[in-house]
C-alpha cells in the first residue's frame, strides 16, 4: 500500500516537472525580457508559434534539434517585432503584446491546419541520468526526464549566475531599473532591450516546442491553453528570480498533473472543474504575490513597461 502511494507521489512529481517545463522556459524568457525593462505580453502567441514551427520542421526534417531551433527562431522573430514596436516606435507595450498574441494565435492556427493529427516521426524521450537517477524519489522525479528538461536546469542556474555575477547581467538590470543611468554610462539601452527581448522570445518559443515535441507530442490548435499567461503571472510570483521561477513552474505543473491523475483515478469531480484549477490557482497566486508586496514594488524592474526616450 505504502509502495503504491509512494509510486503515485513520484509519478505526480515527475509529471509536475514535465508539465512545468514549457511554463518554465516561457517564464525564464519573460524574466530576461522584463529585467531589461520590456514587458512582453505576447507569450501565449509566441509559444503557439514556437510549438507549431517546431512541430512542422520536425515533421519535415525528422530532426528534433532542427525543430527546437526553428521554434527559437520563430519566437525570436515575434519578439523582434515586439521590440521594434515598443523600443524603437515606443508603442504601448501592453497593446503591442496583445496584438502579437492574437497574431501569433492566428499564424499558428493557419500554419498548423495541415498537420493536425499528424504524428511526429520523433519526439523527446526520457533519458535516465546514470547515477543521479538512483537517488530515491528525487532521482525518478528529476533525472528520468528528457534533454529539454535537463537543459532547463542548466538554463536556470546559468541565468541566475548571469544576473547576479556578471557584468552583462549587471548592465541588463541597469537598463531595466534606470535606463537614463545606463545610457549616461554608455550602455546602449536600445540594443540591450532588443537583445534581451529577442532572447526572451527565443526561450518562449522553445517552451512552445516542448509542448508539441515532448509533452503532447503532437500539434493541437491552441494547445498552450493559457500557459503563456500563466508564465507571465509566474514572473511576478517569482519576483523576477530564475530560481523561484523554477519552483513556481513546477508548482503549476503539479496542479496540472494532479488534475489529470485525479481524473484517471476516476474521481467524482467533473473534469471541467479540474481543468479550471490552474487558472484559479494563477489568480490566487497573483493576488497573494501582489498583496504581499503591496506599495513596495519588490523586485519589479523600476522602468518595466516604460519606453525609453532621451530627454
Amino acid at each position, binding site marked *: 500500500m505504502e509502495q503504491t502511494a509512494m509510486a503515485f507521489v513520484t509519478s505526480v512529481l515527475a509529471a509536475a516537472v514535465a508539465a512545468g517545463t514549457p511554463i518554465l522556459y516561457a517564464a525564464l524568457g519573460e524574466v530576461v525580457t522584463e529585467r531589461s525593462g520590456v514587458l512582453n*505580453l505576447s507569450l501565449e*502567441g509566441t509559444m503557439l508559434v514556437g510549438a507549431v514551427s517546431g512541430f512542422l520542421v520536425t515533421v519535415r526534417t525528422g530532426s528534433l534539434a532542427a525543430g527546437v531551433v526553428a521554434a*527559437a*527562431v520563430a519566437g525570436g*522573430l515575434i519578439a*523582434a*517585432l515586439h*521590440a*521594434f*514596436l515598443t523600443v*524603437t516606435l515606443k*508603442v504601448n507595450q*501592453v*497593446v503591442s503584446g*496583445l*496584438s*502579437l*498574441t*492574437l*497574431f*501569433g*494565435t*492566428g499564424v499558428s*492556427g*493557419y500554419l498548423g*491546419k495541415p498537420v493536425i493529427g499528424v504524428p511526429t516521426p520523433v519526439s523527446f524521450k526520457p533519458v535516465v541520468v546514470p547515477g543521479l537517477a538512483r537517488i530515491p524519489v528525487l532521482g525518478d522525479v528529476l533525472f528520468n526526464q528528457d534533454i529539454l528538461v535537463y537543459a532547463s536546469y542548466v538554463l536556470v542556474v546559468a541565468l541566475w549566475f548571469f544576473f547576479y555575477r*556578471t557584468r*552583462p547581467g549587471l*548592465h541588463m538590470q541597469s537598463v531595466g531599473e534606470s535606463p537614463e543611468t545606463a545610457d549616461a554610462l*554608455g*550602455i*546602449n539601452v*536600445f*540594443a*540591450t532591450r*532588443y*537583445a534581451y527581448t*529577442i*532572447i526572451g522570445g*527565443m526561450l518562449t518559443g522553445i517552451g512552445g516546442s516542448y509542448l508539441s515535441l515532448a509533452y503532447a507530442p503532437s500539434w493541437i490548435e491552441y494547445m498552450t*491553453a*493559457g500557459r503563456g*499567461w500563466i508564465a*507571465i*503571472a509566474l514572473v*511576478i510570483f517569482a519576483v523576477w528570480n530564475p530560481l523561484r521561477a523554477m519552483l513556481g513552474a513546477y508548482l503549476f505543473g503539479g496542479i496540472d498533473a494532479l488534475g489529470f491523475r485525479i481524473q484517471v483515478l476516476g474521481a467524482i469531480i*467533473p473534469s*471541467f*472543474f479540474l481543468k*479550471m484549477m490552474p*487558472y484559479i490557482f*494563477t*489568480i490566487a497566486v*497573483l493576488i497573494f504575490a*501582489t*498583496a504581499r508586496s*503591496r506599495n513596495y514594488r519588490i523586485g519589479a524592474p523600476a522602468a518595466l513597461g516604460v519606453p525609453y*526616450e*532621451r*530627454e
Partner: protein
Amino acid sequence: MTEDARKVTTGTAAPTGATRAAEAEGPTGAAGAAGAVGGIGEVRAAGGTEEAGAAGSTGEARAAGGAGAGGAAPGRALAGWSIKVEKRPEISPFWMAMAPVISVAMALVCGGIFLRLTGYDPFEVYRLMFKGAFGSRYGLVETVVKATPILLATIGVSVAFRMLLWNIGAEGQIYMGAFAASWVALSHPGWPPFVLLTAMFIAGAVAGALWALLPALPRAIWGVNEIITTLMLNYVAIYWVDYLVYGPWKDPKGFNFPLTPQFSNAAWLPCLGNTRIHLGLVFGLVAAVAVSVMLSRTRWGYEIRVIGENPAAARYAGMNIPRNVVLVMLLSGAIAGIAGMGEVAGITHRLQHGISPGYGYTAIIVAWLAKLNPAGIVVTSFLFGGLLVAGYAVQIFGIPADIATMLQGSLLFFVLGGEALARYRVKLVRAGGPAGRAASVTPRLGTG
C-alpha cells in the same frame, strides 16, 4: 523641448552584430535575429576619420573596435547610410489620417505574402473573402450578425481602456452573460416575452458585471494586475459553460451535442424581417451613444478621462480611484454580458459550446483600432464582423479560417506602427565616410 534625435543603423551597416547578450549567454541565433530586424539601436553617425562609432547592434564600443577605453575615439568607422528616427515637434495630422489606410494595405500585403508562401493565390483569396463578407445579401447580414457582439464587447472594453484598465476578460464576461441569460430562459419558459427578455437582459448584464468584479476588487484593493486575472477568468468561464452543456444542462434529445434544449419562443429576441439580425444590434448602438455621451459630457466621464490620463492628478484632485476601478469594470463587464445574452437570445436560442468564437479578443483590437472612439467602434466592428465572415467563407476552399485572426492581429500591429510614424520622423541619412554601403531605404515595419 529637448527631444534628442536618435540614430538607427540598418542591418547592413551594423558590422558584427555581436550583442553583449550573445557573447554572454544567448543562443547563437540572437545576433542574427537582431540583424534581421535591422539591427535597430542607437548609433552615432560616422563623421570623418576620427569618428567614434559604437554600432547599433554591437551594444558596446569595444565589441566593434576591440579598443578599450583608452583613446578618445574607440571603435572604427561605420560607413554608409543610417536611418534616423526622431520625434516630430507636433504630431503630423497627415500621417495620423493616413495611418489606418496604409496600415490596412500593409497588413493585406503581408497577409498576401504569407498566403503566397503557403501556396495560395492571394488575389483570389482576398476576392473570395470580400465577396463572402460584403458581396451578397447573405454575406452582409452575416457580417452584421457577427458585428453585433463585437460592437457590444468593444464598447465594454473601451470604457475600461479609457481608464487604462486592461479588461482582457470580455470573452469570459460574454460567456457568463450567455450563461445567466440561458439560466433565466430555461428556468422560466412560460413568462411572457417582454418580461422574460427583460429578465434575461438584466441577468446577462449582472452576470457579466459580477464576472468583471472578481478581478476588479483585487485590482482596486491591492493593485493586482488585471490583465492576467481577467484573462484567466476567460478560461474558467468557458469551462463552466462547457461543464453545463456537456453535463447537467445537456439536451437529452440533442444527439449528445454539447448544447442545451432550445429556449421557448418567448426568449427569442425579435429579428429584423426574416434575417438573423436581432435586437442586440440596437443594444449595441444605444450602448455606443450612451457611452459616448457619458465620457464626453458627464462628471463621471470626466473622472474616467482624468484617471486614465494621469492617476496621480486624479488622486490629487480628490477622485476616488479604487471606486472608479470597480464601477468601470462593472460597466465594462455588464456591456460584454449583454453581448452574451444577445447571442443566446438572438442567434442560437440555446446555450452551447463555443458560444463566442473569440469576440472578446477581437473587441480588444477593435477598441484600439478605433482609438476608443464610440463612432469609430461602430464602423470598425462592422469591418471586423466582415473579416470573420470572410474567414469562414474561404474555409470551404480549404483555406484555414485562421487567416482572419492573423489579419486581425497584423492589422493592429501595423496600425500601431503607422501611428508611431505620425509621431516620429524616419529619415535616411547619408553618413559621410568611406566605403558606404547602401542600405534599404524604407523602414521595415516587420515581416508579417
